[in-house]
C-alpha cells in the first residue's frame, strides 16, 4: 500500500469518527436540554411558553453540538492535513509521509528511501486509538444523558411541548385542528380541612356535589391558553398543570352553573353545594317545664343529646335566671363549663346544678338550654341550641294578677283531709264514751265532709285533664288524684254507715296520696282562664276620633316559582330531540334553579341530563320532573261522584 493510499484510509476512518461523535454529541445535547427542563419542572411548573420552546431548544442544542464537533474535525477532509496530523503523532517520519504523498514533489521512483520510511510508519495504531477516544467520549456522554432521561421519564413534558409547538409558529394562537380540550374532564373535590373528609375525583362530571368551601379543581388535557370558566359574574383563566390545564374554584354557597369554554366548545357542570348542618341539640332532662310550688332544694340533673352531620366541636349549658315581678325584673345569664366533644357525630352533655346556689325565690324563673357548636370554619361555626326548659317558682300573685288558672287546691284539700282524719281518729277513740246516736250523727257528718273533699278532687282532676279543645288526657297527678277520689268514695260509704274504724285505713291512704301530690312538682297551668268578652254591639262605631282614608297598595301576587320552572322546562324539553346540546345546557341551568326550591325536580333533571349526554332518550326523566312541578292533587271533600280530587 502506497503512502497516499494509507493516508486516504486514515482520513476515511478519522472522518467517520468525527461524524459518529458529532451524532452522539448532538443526541447528548438534545437529551441534556430535556433533562434540564424536566428537572426544573419538578421544582415548579414550567410556563407554557417555556414548555412550547423545549423542542426548538432541543433541535438547536443538537445542531450546535453536532456542528461544533464537525467543525472541530473539519481537517479530516484534507489528505494533506491528515498526513500532517500523522506526522504530528509520529515525529520520526521527519515529514517523509507529507512529502511522499505528493507525487509531483517526490515520485517513488526517484525517492525510494523516502517512500520506504513513509510506508514503515505505524499509522493504523494511533488512528485506531484516536477513533476509539473520539467516539467513546461522545457515546459515554450520550449514555449519561440518556440515563438521566430514563430516570426522569418526562413523557408528559414532551407531550405538552409537542402540543405547544404550533403556538410558537408565526401567526400564533391554537391551531384549528386542536381537539376539544373540554372533552376529557376530571373534577377533584377537596373538602374543607375542618371536615376531615377524603378528597375524591369525579371523571366526566355533570354535577359536583360538595360541602360549601370545598376546593374543586377541573382538569383537562391540552395547553391552558384560551380555556376559561365562568361562575356567576367571575371568569377564571385556566392554568397549566402536570397533565394539561386546570381551573380551580371554591364551592359557592348557592347552587351555580360552572361554564367552561374552549374556543367554540362549551361544557357546563352544576355546582351543588352541600350545607354543613348546624348541630341538633335535644334536651332530655328536665323533660318538661315545671312550676315548683315552693323554692326547690337539692340538685337538678340536666342532660342533652347533640348530633352533627360532620362533627361536634364543643357544647355547654346556658342558664337565664330571672327574678322579680310585673315591671321589675332582674335577669342573670350564666353558662356552664365548655365541654370538648372531639369531632364526635353524637355526644351527650350532662350537668348538675345545685338549686341552693342559685338564690331562687318565689317568682324566680330559670331557663335552661344547651348549646353546641361544630368545627365549621367556612360558613360557621354552626351553632345548635336545644329548646328551652322553663322552671318557675310559684308566687301567690300568680293566682290573682297574672296566672289564668288558680293554683291547684291540693294544699287546702290535704289540710281538710288531715283534719277529717284527726276528727275520725278522735271519734274512734271516744266511741265508747259517746251515745250511739251521737256517734252515728258525727260519722254521718264526716261522711258528708269526705264527699265534699271528693268532689273537689274530681273538679281538679277535670281541670288537669282538660286539653283546652274539648278533649282530655290523663296526667300523672290526675291519675293519683283519681285514685284518691276512689278511696274517698269507699271511706265516705263506711263513714255513712257509722264504721269509721273501717274507713280509717282508706283515709290514711288518701292523706298519703294527697301528700305525695302536694309535694310533687306540678305542671304550670297558664292561659286557662277565659278571656273577657267585649259587647261589640254596644260599642260599635261609638268612637269619636276621625280616621282618614289613604290609597291602598295591593299586595303583590306571590311569585310562583314552580310555574316559572315549569315554563322553562317545557321549552328545554321541546329542544331535547331537535337540539340536544341546547336542551342539555338549558336543563343544566334549570336544575341549578331547582336545587334549593324543588329537590325532587332537580333529581329528575339530573337523570335527564345524564341520559342526554349519553345520547339516550330522556323523555321519562323529563316527564318525572314535569310532574314534580305540578301542584299536588287537592281533596275537595263533600259529595263528588267522580272522587272529589282536583289537580
Amino acid at each position, binding site marked *: 500500500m502506497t503512502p497516499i493510499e494509507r493516508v486516504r484510509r486514515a482520513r476515511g476512518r478519522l472522518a467517520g469518527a468525527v461524524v459518529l461523535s458529532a451524532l452522539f454529541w448532538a443526541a447528548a445535547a438534545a437529551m441534556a436540554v430535556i433533562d434540564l427542563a424536566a428537572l426544573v419542572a419538578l421544582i415548579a411548573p414550567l410556563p407554557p411558553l417555556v414548555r412550547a420552546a423545549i423542542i426548538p431548544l432541543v433541535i438547536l442544542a443538537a445542531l450546535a453540538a453536532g456542528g461544533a464537533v464537525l467543525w472541530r474535525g473539519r481537517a479530516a477532509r484534507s489528505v494533506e492535513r491528515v498526513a500532517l496530523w500523522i506526522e504530528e503523532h509520529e515525529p520520526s517520519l521527519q515529514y517523509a509521509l507529507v512529502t511522499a504523498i505528493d507525487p509531483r514533489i517526490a515520485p517513488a521512483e526517484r525517492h525510494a528511501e523516502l517512500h520506504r520510511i513513509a510506508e514503515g510508519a505505524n499509522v493504523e495504531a494511533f488512528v485506531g486509538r484516536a477513533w476509539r477516544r473520539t467516539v467513546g467520549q461522545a457515546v459515554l456522554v450520550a449514555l449519561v444523558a440518556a440515563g438521566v432521561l430514563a430516570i426522569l421519564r418526562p413523557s408528559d413534558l414532551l407531550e405538552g411541548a409537542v402540543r405547544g409547538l404550533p403556538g410558537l409558529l408565526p401567526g400564533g394562537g391554537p391551531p384549528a385542528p386542536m381537539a376539544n380540550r373540554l372533552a376529557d374532564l376530571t373534577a377533584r373535590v377537596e373538602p374543607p380541612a375542618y371536615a376531615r373528609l377524603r378528597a375524591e375525583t369525579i371523571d366526566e362530571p355533570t354535577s359536583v356535589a360538595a360541602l360549601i368551601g370545598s376546593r374543586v379543581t377541573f382538569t383537562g388535557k391540552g395547553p391552558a391558553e384560551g380555556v376559561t370558566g365562568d361562575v356567576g359574574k367571575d371568569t377564571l383563566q385556566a392554568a397549566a398543570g402536570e397533565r394539561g390545564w386546570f381551573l380551580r374554584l371554591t364551592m359557592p354557597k348557592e347552587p351555580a352553573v360552572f361554564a367552561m369554554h374552549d374556543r367554540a366548545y362549551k361544557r357546563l357542570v352544576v355546582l351543588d353545594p352541600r350545607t354543613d348542618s348546624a348541630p341538633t341539640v335535644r334536651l332530655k332532662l328536665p323533660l318538661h317545664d315545671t312550676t315548683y310550688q315552693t323554692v326547690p332544694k337539692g340538685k337538678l340533673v340536666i342532660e342533652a343529646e347533640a348530633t352533627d352531620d360532620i362533627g361536634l366541636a364543643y357544647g355547654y349549658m346556658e342558664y337565664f335566671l*330571672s327574678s322579680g315581678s310585673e315591671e321589675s325584673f332582674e335577669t342573670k345569664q350564666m353558662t356552664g363549663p365548655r365541654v370538648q366533644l372531639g369531632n364526635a357525630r353524637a355526644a351527650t352533655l350532662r350537668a348538675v346544678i345545685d338549686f341552693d346556689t342559685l338564690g331562687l325565690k318565689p317568682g324566680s324563673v330559670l331557663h335552661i338550654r344547651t348549646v353546641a357548636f361544630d368545627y365549621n370554619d367556612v360558613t360557621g361555626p354552626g351553632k345548635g341550641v336545644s*329548646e328551652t326548659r322553663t322552671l318557675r317558682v310559684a308566687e301567690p300573685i300568680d293566682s290573682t294578677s297574672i296566672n289564668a288558672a288558680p293554683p291547684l287546691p291540693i294544699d287546702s284539700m290535704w289540710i281538710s283531709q288531715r283534719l277529717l282524719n284527726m276528727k275520725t281518729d278522735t271519734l274512734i277513740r271516744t266511741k265508747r264514751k259517746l251515745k250511739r246516736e251521737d256517734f252515728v250523727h258525727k260519722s254521718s257528718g264526716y261522711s258528708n265532709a269526705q264527699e265534699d273533699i271528693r268532689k273537689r278532687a274530681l273538679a281538679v282532676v277535670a281541670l288537669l285533664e282538660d286539653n283546652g279543645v274539648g278533649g282530655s288526657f290523663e296526667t300523672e297527678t290526675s291519675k293519683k288524684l283519681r285514685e284518691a277520689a276512689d278511696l274517698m268514695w269507699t271511706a265516705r260509704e263506711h263513714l255513712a254507715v257509722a264504721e269509721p274504724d273501717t274507713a280509717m285505713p282508706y283515709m290514711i291512704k288518701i292523706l298519703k296520696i294527697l301528700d305525695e301530690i302536694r309535694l310533687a312538682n306540678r305542671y304550670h297551668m297558664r292561659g286557662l282562664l277565659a278571656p273577657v268578652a267585649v259587647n261589640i254591639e254596644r260599642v260599635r262605631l261609638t268612637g269619636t276620633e276621625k280616621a*282618614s282614608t289613604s290609597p*291602598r*297598595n295591593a299586595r303583590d301576587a306571590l311569585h310562583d316559582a314552580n310555574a316559572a320552572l315549569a315554563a322553562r322546562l317545557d321549552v328545554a324539553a321541546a329542544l331535547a330531540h331537535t337540539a340536544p346540546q341546547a336542551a342539555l345546557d338549558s336543563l343544566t341551568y334549570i336544575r341549578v334553579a331547582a336545587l334549593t326550591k324543588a329537590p325532587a325536580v332537580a333529581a329528575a333533571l339530573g337523570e335527564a341530563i345524564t341520559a342526554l349526554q349519553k345520547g339516550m332518550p330522556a323523555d321519562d326523566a323529563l316527564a318525572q320532573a314535569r310532574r314534580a312541578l305540578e301542584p299536588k292533587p287537592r281533596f275537595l271533600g263533600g259529595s263528588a261522584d267522580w272522587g272529589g280530587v282536583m289537580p
Partner: protein
Amino acid sequence: MSQFVFATAEYASGDWESAPALPENVIDTLAKYTTIDVAPVGVNVKLSSDELFNYPFVWMTGHLPVRFTDAERRNVKRYVERGGFLMIDDHNHDITGVFHKTVNEEIERLFGKMTRLPKDHELYRCFFVFEDGPPNTHHELNGYGDDLLHRYLDAVLVNGRIGLLYSSKDYSSEWNFHAETKKFMQQDPTKFAVNLIVYALTR
C-alpha cells in the same frame, strides 16, 4: 268573610300572658272605629301549633327571655313568610332588657336583620294618620325602662309587606287596661292598634 279574632301568642318560654287586659281593649277599639266583623273574645294561640295559621294578626309580648322551641321557630317563619302579621312588643320597653335581646336574636336567626320603617310608611296612614310615626307611650314619656323615645319600629318585610313588626315602645303596658277606662281619657291611646290590624287585614 270570616270574623277577625284577636290572637295572643303563647310561647313556651317567658311570660306571654303579661298583658291580660290588652286583647279586650284592642277588640273594643276595633269595634269603636271600624265595621270589621270582630269576635268579642280573643284567643291564646300556641306559636308551636298549626292553629297559628288561622289568625292573620297575632300579638306577642313579655318581659322575660324568649327562647323559641324548634316547633315555634318553624311555625313563626312559615307564618310570617306566608302572609301572617306577627306583632312583637317589648313589655320591658328596654333595649338593654332580656326580652329585647333574646327576641331580636330569634328574629335575626329566622329572618336576618330587620328593616327600620320610615315615618311615612303606609302603616301610619292606613286608617288613622300618625304624622310622626309610631305614637309615643306614657311609659316612654315618663322615662321608664331604657328612658328612650323610640322613634321608629322595625319590621321583617315579605315582598314589601310587613310580616313581623317589632316595637320597643311597650304598647303592652299602654293598652293593658280595662276598655271602659277609655271614656275618661281625652285621647284614645289605642288608636294605633286599629292601624296595625287594618294593615294586617288589607295589605
